[in-house]
């Protein structure tokens, strides 16, 4: 099983100024703990929309890799975002899904991946072909490094344990937004 914080530390250690969209809950908590950087966009709510927001960001910045750190519960709430992204197939998109098969923050209720749903197969069914489902840290590091080097889009389903995340990123949405845009060299439009 992969440890989400350890894998998140690997992700940020590989990056220079590439932006990350971090889904609500543990994905963003561990991103903050791993490394708070202006290029991190922390979503405080809007469950499911990290995948859609990452698609928009990848469309706006085609010459830079864009990373989404998502969760199984969140993606299951907006599964159609996979079929939408597959109409576009952005080569710069890396969509990492931390799959712990539960809604951890609300008490560990099972998500549908605890039953028969397989996010890797769903991504393939949506139209993606560079899809990896990974269970250990070494394989995760290989897959993520490859995704950074080679054209995507990449879908990396990382099967993680259920360690609780303790990091708490900045709470002001407008602070997060302005810091993020400034780090990409963008003034308010």
């Amino acid at each position, binding site marked *: 099983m992969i440890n989400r914080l350890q894998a998140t530390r690997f992700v940020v250690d590989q990056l220079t100024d590439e*932006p990350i*969209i971090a889904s609500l809950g543990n994905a963003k908590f561990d991103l903050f703990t791993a490394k708070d950087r202006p290029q991190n*966009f922390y*979503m*405080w*709510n*809007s*469950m*499911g*929309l*990290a*995948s*859609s*927001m*990452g*698609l*928009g*960001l*990848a*469309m*706006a*910045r085609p010459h830079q890799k864009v990373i989404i750190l998502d969760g199984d519960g969140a993606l299951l709430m*907006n599964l*159609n*975002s996979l*079929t*939408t992204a597959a*109409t*576009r197939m952005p080569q710069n998109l890396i969509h990492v899904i931390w799959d712990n098969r539960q809604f951890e923050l609300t008490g560990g209720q099972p998500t549908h991946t605890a039953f028969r749903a397989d996010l890797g197969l769903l991504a393939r069914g949506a139209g993606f072909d560079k899809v990896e489902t990974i269970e250990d840290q070494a394989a995760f590091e290989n897959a993520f490094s490859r995704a950074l080097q080679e054209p995507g889009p990449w879908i990396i389903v990382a099967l993680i344990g259920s360690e609780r995340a303790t990091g708490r990123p900045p709470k002001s*949405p*407008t602070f*997060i*937004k302005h810091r*993020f*845009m400034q780090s*990409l060299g*963008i003034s*308010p*439009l």
Partner: protein
Amino acid sequence: MTWPQHIIEQLKAYRIRFLSYVPDAIGEQVLKLARHDDFFDILPLAREEEGIGVVTGLYVGGERGAVLMPTSGVGNTVNGLASLAIPYQIPFPMFIGLRGDLGEFNAAQVPMGQALRPILESLRIPYFVLERPDEVNTMVEGALKLTYALELPVALLISTTLAGWKEEK
């Protein structure tokens, strides 16, 4: 110019290049012009709330977008608006083809059509109803100016008076 042509010209004047949509007969009158114009990049959505995420990602990445949707789709966008676009202050226009109002034949469209304005009001999203062809240019230009000044979404409701109502088939 026709009303869809006015909308197209104002989108270009405001450098709104990315159009995300869930189709309806009214929005299609704008999209069919955009499809023949190299300026625009058009993304078909499966569900309207995705559009709120996509346009947010575009905006923080340095590009402006718009979302086109039918009235029923506004119900699908509420959490995306309330928990992403509004708190993070993301400006964009939503073009909404009106159903469930003047000339409606389908009872299942009516409750959402009647709830649309109160929903937008409760979210404090400014909206403008396009009714007369000679007002479209000014109202669209004004709404686009407002959204970027306010740094919040605004809605443009395309009425059946302007676009015609759907005939029962």
